[in-house]
């Protein structure tokens, strides 16, 4: 869609866009990737420490430890978001702090905190999944399609 529009733009606009693109400060992709790697890796490392802790000291197996680990990470995220650190980490780390489940938590919690001024039902309630909604919607839908295909293959294809 966007490409089509660009082709239909008047020639001076096209010329300007090309010129503008040259002058635009490029995103430091390599640097960003390195930062994302270390911060993202670190968050997963912390996650592993939490899981190991739960396995050693509580009644969880490797299979069942996932849920309490995620819940703990999201709890920590709430504190970081509430005290205003997470957005700074995010500006530094980019995907490094957005891709782990803490990023999902941050998206939900930041929206909830932000919209409390509009009341708890219509503000917090409606806007909570403003950012994280698509993740749930398309996660569920794609999982449905994948599981459906797989089930059909198993049941009738004898996979």
């Amino acid at each position: 869609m966007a490409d089509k529009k660009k082709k239909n733009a008047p020639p001076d606009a096209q010329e300007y866009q090309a010129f503008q693109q040259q002058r635009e400060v490029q995103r430091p992709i390599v640097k960003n990737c390195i930062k994302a790697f270390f911060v993202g890796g670190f968050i997963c490392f912390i996650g592993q420490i939490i899981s190991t802790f739960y396995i050693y000291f509580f009644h969880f197996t490797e299979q069942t430890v996932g849920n309490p680990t995620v819940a703990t990470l999201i709890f920590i995220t709430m504190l970081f978001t509430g005290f205003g650190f997470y957005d700074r980490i995010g500006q530094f780390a980019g995907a490094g702090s957005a891709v782990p489940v803490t990023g999902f938590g941050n998206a939900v919690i930041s929206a909830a905190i932000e919209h409390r001024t509009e009341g708890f039902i219509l503000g917090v309630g409606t806007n909570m999944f403003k950012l994280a909604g698509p993740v749930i919607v398309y996660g569920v839908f794609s999982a449905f399609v994948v599981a459906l295909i797989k089930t059909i293959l198993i049941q009738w294809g004898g996979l």
Partner: protein
Amino acid sequence: MLTGHQTWVFNNKPVIISTGTVGGPFEANGNIPNDFDLLHDDMWLKQDSFEKAQQTLMEEACQTAVKKSSIEKEQVQFFISGDLINQITPTSFAAKTIGIPYFGLFNACATSMESLALSAMIINAKGANYILSGTSSHNAAAEKQFRYPTEYGGQKPPTAQWTVTGAGCALVAQDGQGPKITSATIGKIIDMGITDPFNMGGAMAPAAVHTIETHFKERNIDPSYYDLIITGDLGHIGREISLDLLKKRGLSIQENQYVDCGLTIYREGQPVLAGASGPACSAVVTYGHFLNRMKKGDLHRILVVATGALHSPLSIQQNDPIPCIAHAVSIESGSDV
């Protein structure tokens, strides 16, 4: 008096008799804290929402401007103002508190000069004796409106800009002491098909170039006429692009004669990426910093070109390009005219 197609020359020389500028904590930590009349150390200004905080900023800027002048609030005929937030409600609520007949404007970050040009025009035509014109913006309120929740950890690209928390207000009068408004060029919408809302400098540069070029052509003067040509909030990227474009069009503007409010307000090292933006950016820097320098005698003639990106979150999501505008107002110190 209309000169050319889109330029007004004000023969009766409306005067800016006083100004009021208010800033937030981030501005207090910036490059020009001494040019603010009032600085707050709390983003909330003790209000219970960011929008109400912005309303308070606007009210305080107006009150300061009136207090610094020798007139009473009741003598002011009109309040001309606008902002970025949903249907400009912070400004409208501020207008309710101020209690003066009110024109609400929306031209995004160009609102500051739009309101100043209109005030000058009304004063020039003797439609009023005193007019308050100003704008406000609030970083967190703008983030919430246009981008993500303030606590969301999204990474902004290096082309993004930082919305100023503050409000700037000018009291324009028929006569009195102070810098005079001599002319204004009203810009038209320029749309070069840029769709990235995190690169407003790049989107707005052509609008600024168009308005500056038209201003010189229609007033038939040379860029050297002005000590400074001040753009609103083009930031690093927009400033350089527009300077190159202006040179390409044959306007001889010196590098040091061309400054940007968005690059003046903050220090090096503040995390503002490409520079500042927001309606308050050009308002507080012009009414604070540059008019102070004029009073000191550093500057005699300036041209302020406020630029605005007139997109909405909706238009961006529907893949529409960003329509941009720029308005230029020339201000000259009293002794000159």
